């Protein structure tokens, strides 16, 4: 890992764009997603390798999730996730040097069934050199109306400890003058509804609240300083200490007569930082002999946060100031394909009911509307650089076994 003398310009978690909290949320989904009310999830193990390359960042690593029933009414899960990051992103280049880092996460969970109700609990621990997150999650799913309707209520709580790495005499260590905390709470309500013999709808709502240190201690804002350097000066970001968001989504999945499935979804998002976002997704699934093929497209757009600017007019322009790309205005398109091959039943492993080999590939393009390539300020002048465009390729290879 190489750092500038002071600190990296981008929080390692945010290089992948990811905050530990976001990662934690993802893990929550891992724990709770397989739950179908009234039915415990199948015993299953997944071993996945993920690879992301885009914007001079490479992130890859393994992910393992194992689920096993204990008796008739209890199902346990355990998972492990790892990101190995090599980053030389535009954020890093602006004021620091490339680095390598590993993040690790473990999670355990339990689903307990009582009648048509399933109670789920989970715990996630994630750590990296400058960020530790602990999360607990609780949810309850209930089947009703002849099992046509499933209602799920969820709650989670997360506690983060935030450090900042510095380089002292060539050794990377936590800055003893920097230690922050952040707490997160989430409330969710989901409903799935069988509408016809071939159509199922899903509705989801989620409220998330954050309190504490929500900024990235490495990233910088820039403000105009004509005649100085390349025409701008870097300064620390200042974020609000609270954030509350609401998101609602609807999904529809339809079974086509020739044994195929079509899925469409829409999500609306709004938060107290003035970000508004729309997400549209369409996916087609087609089985063929021992194969299942998937193809899909996802379109996303958002407005920028009220305190975001690519280039502030002058220092201390306002009380809150940020230049994180995630808070900029942009739209993105992801196109993905996947294939799954189901192995024939093998006599030497009679305990395996099913097994599949899966590959997936996605191409993601993000077009920013107000985030410029500040590395080109010397050519175009500060504030006149070309808008930044991110192109990324994402690959997944995994094996799934049901037993």
């Amino acid at each position, binding site marked *: 890992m190489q750092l500038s003398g002071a600190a990296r310009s981008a929080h390692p978690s945010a290089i992948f*764009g990811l905050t530990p909290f976001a990662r934690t949320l993802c893990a929550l*989904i891992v724990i709770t997603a397989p739950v179908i009310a009234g039915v415990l999830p199948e015993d299953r193990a997944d071993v996945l390798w993920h690879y992301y390359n885009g914007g001079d960042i490479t992130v890859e690593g393994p992910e393992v999730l194992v689920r096993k029933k204990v008796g008739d009414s209890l199902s346990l899960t355990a998972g492990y996730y790892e990101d190995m990051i090599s980053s030389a992103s535009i954020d890093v280049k602006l004021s620091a040097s490339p680095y390598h880092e590993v993040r690790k996460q473990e999670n355990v969970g339990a689903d307990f069934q009582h009648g048509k109700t399933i109670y789920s609990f989970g715990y996630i621990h994630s750590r990296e050199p400058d960020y530790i997150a602990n999360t607990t999650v609780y949810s309850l799913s209930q089947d009703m109306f002849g099992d046509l309707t499933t209602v799920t209520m969820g709650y989670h709580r997360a506690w983060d400890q935030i450090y900042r790495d510095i380089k002292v005499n060539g050794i990377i260590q936590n800055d003893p003058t920097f230690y922050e905390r952040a707490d997160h709470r989430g409330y969710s309500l989901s409903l799935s509804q069988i509408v016809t013999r071939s159509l199922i709808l899903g509705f989801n709502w989620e409220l998330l609240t954050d309190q504490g240190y929500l900024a990235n201690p490495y990233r910088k804002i820039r403000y105009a300083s004509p005649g100085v350097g390349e025409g701008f000066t870097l300064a620390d970001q200042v974020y609000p200490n609270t954030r509350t968001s609401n998101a609602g989504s609807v999904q529809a999945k339809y079974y086509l007569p020739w044994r195929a499935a079509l899925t469409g979804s829409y999500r609306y998002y709004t938060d107290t930082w003035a970000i508004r976002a729309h997400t549209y997704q369409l996916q087609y699934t087609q089985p063929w002999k021992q194969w299942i093929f998937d193809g899909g497209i996802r379109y996303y757009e958002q407005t920028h946060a009220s305190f975001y600017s690519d280039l502030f007019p002058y220092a201390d322009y306002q009380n809150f100031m940020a230049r994180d790309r995630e808070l900029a205005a942009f739209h993105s398109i992801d196109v993905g394909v996947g294939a799954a091959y189901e192995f024939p039943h093998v006599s030497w492993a009679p305990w395996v009911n099913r097994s599949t080999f899966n590959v997936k590939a996605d191409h993601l393009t993000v077009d920013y509307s107000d985030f410029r390539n500040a590395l080109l300020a010397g050519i175009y002048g500060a504030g006149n650089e070309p808008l930044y465009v991110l192109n990324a390729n994402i690959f997944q290879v995994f094996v799934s076994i049901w037993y």
Partner: protein
Amino acid sequence: MSKAMQAIMTAVLLALLGGCAAPQPWVKPYEREHFADPIMSMSRNPVSDVYLEHVFETREGARGATGLVGGGCGCN
């Protein structure tokens, strides 16, 4: 209480009582074979779906309500 108010209250009460009657499932259990097909799962491969959602969430301001949590096929 006026007669009009009594009538409204009665109507509301009847409506509430009517709502207590469980609706009959209009898609019978034996008609749900499509939902037992893996291709109709809202998240056929949770590990993969969550990973990809993780990629998006890290790049975007929006979060939550992805639809990956919960769900149910009623196929039991």
